[in-house]
């Protein structure tokens, strides 16, 4: 069972769109959803879908075949190709060259086959050839960089068996996460990439590190930022308070007359390493609400005692 895909709808086009319209629409949407550029949450999925739609509609042969299915299908509807599907069509050459064909949907594969799935596009060479390097991204927690950790990741890659059928193979690797690793750094695992050909060595696997969002720490390079709520009197009078760090809480001295947004640096409390990062505590002055009579009275007292105009700089 698979779902019908409305390639025109995905590209925001009417069925009569010209080839120029298709190209223009692709360019526009590709810029919008390109995973390197877009911050939309589902950019990657959208971009893949768009690539697949464009793969079909830009190619007059494939487009004609797709159009032949008729306009009465709804996106998401259960789909089975008609019995004489694609009779008289020959999907030669065109396509599969640019897109990541491995990422196309079952719907696409059912219609146009899995042709062109040769992984590297390189002609078989006589001698041994080193396998391609492969890439993956791995998401870790901040604490993993502090303490070092072992993470297991599952990689999937299309592989061709002896009969030429393509299957997606999964393998799980346990990876040591070195202490002090930073976002955007790469770990190279020698020989864990694609298999070599004709007795050649395997390629390497490159893992790019990304951090999961932490509920209160933010990381920039090796430095860590923490928003720390403080009361008005703690900020005004100064005090010593406990602040959390990824390695446990520490005492921090808040100087008197601290301002909202003041940054206090805890040297060397950032990510560990040869040049360890710093932890920046950003003060967030938090007002108690004036809900009780007592609180109201306290605020009124402040109002009477202090000649305070917070809008002085605005001249009013």
């Amino acid at each position: 069972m698979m779902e019908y895909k409305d390639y025109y709808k995905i590209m925001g086009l009417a069925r009569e769109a010209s080839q120029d319209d298709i190209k223009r629409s692709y360019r526009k949407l590709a810029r919008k959803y390109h995973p390197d550029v877009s911050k939309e949450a589902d950019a990657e999925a959208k971009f893949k879908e768009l690539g697949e739609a464009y793969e079909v509609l830009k190619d007059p042969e494939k487009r004609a075949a797709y159009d032949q299915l008729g306009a009465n299908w709804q996106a998401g509807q259960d789909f089975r190709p008609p019995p004489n599907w694609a009779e008289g069509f020959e999907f030669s050459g065109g396509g599969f060259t640019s897109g990541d064909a491995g990422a196309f949907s079952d719907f696409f594969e059912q219609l146009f086959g899995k042709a062109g799935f040769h992984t590297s596009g390189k002609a078989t060479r006589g001698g041994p050839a080193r396998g391609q390097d492969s890439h993956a991204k791995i998401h870790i927690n901040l604490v993993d960089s502090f303490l070092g950790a072992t993470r297991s990741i599952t990689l999937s890659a299309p592989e061709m068996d002896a009969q030429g059928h393509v299957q997606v193979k999964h393998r799980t690797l346990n990876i040591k996460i070195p202490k002090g690793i930073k976002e955007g750094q790469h770990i190279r695992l020698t020989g864990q990439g694609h298999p070599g050909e004709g007795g050649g060595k395997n390629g390497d696997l490159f893992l790019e590190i990304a951090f999961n969002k932490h509920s209160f720490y933010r990381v920039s390079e090796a430095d860590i930022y923490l928003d720390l709520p403080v009361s008005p009197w703690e900020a005004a009078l100064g005090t010593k308070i406990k602040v959390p760090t990824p390695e446990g809480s520490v005492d921090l001295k808040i100087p008197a007359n601290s301002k909202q947004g003041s940054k206090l640096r805890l040297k060397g409390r950032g990510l560990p390493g040869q040049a360890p990062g710093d932890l920046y505590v950003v003060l967030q002055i938090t007002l108690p609400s004036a809900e009780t009579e007592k609180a109201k009275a306290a605020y009124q007292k402040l109002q009477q005692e202090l000649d305070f105009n917070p809008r002085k700089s605005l001249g009013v």
Partner: protein
Amino acid sequence: MNSHELFLVHTGEVIEEGGLTLGQLCHACDVHAEWVISLVEESIIEPQGETIQYWRFSGTSLGRVRAALRLQRDLGVNLAGIALALDLLEEIENLRLQMHVAERG
């Protein structure tokens, strides 16, 4: 996969500043050296070392080469456009972080 492999922990090496040669970078990204050289000429990536055989690239370069490749392939951006896009993206990323730092004020 046998049970021994299940418990095998792979220790990789972290690519530090200047960790990759031109050849390793090309192989890792599956691109020609000529193309990487043109990225260096456009200052999209900046290796350490004076001459090509002494060039050493960081892990960040690896990310930038792969992003450049995708921008060229998917959006048809030329080298100058890639350089501009990557620099602006980096700036946006920094601004976002600063904004994030400042916004809960």
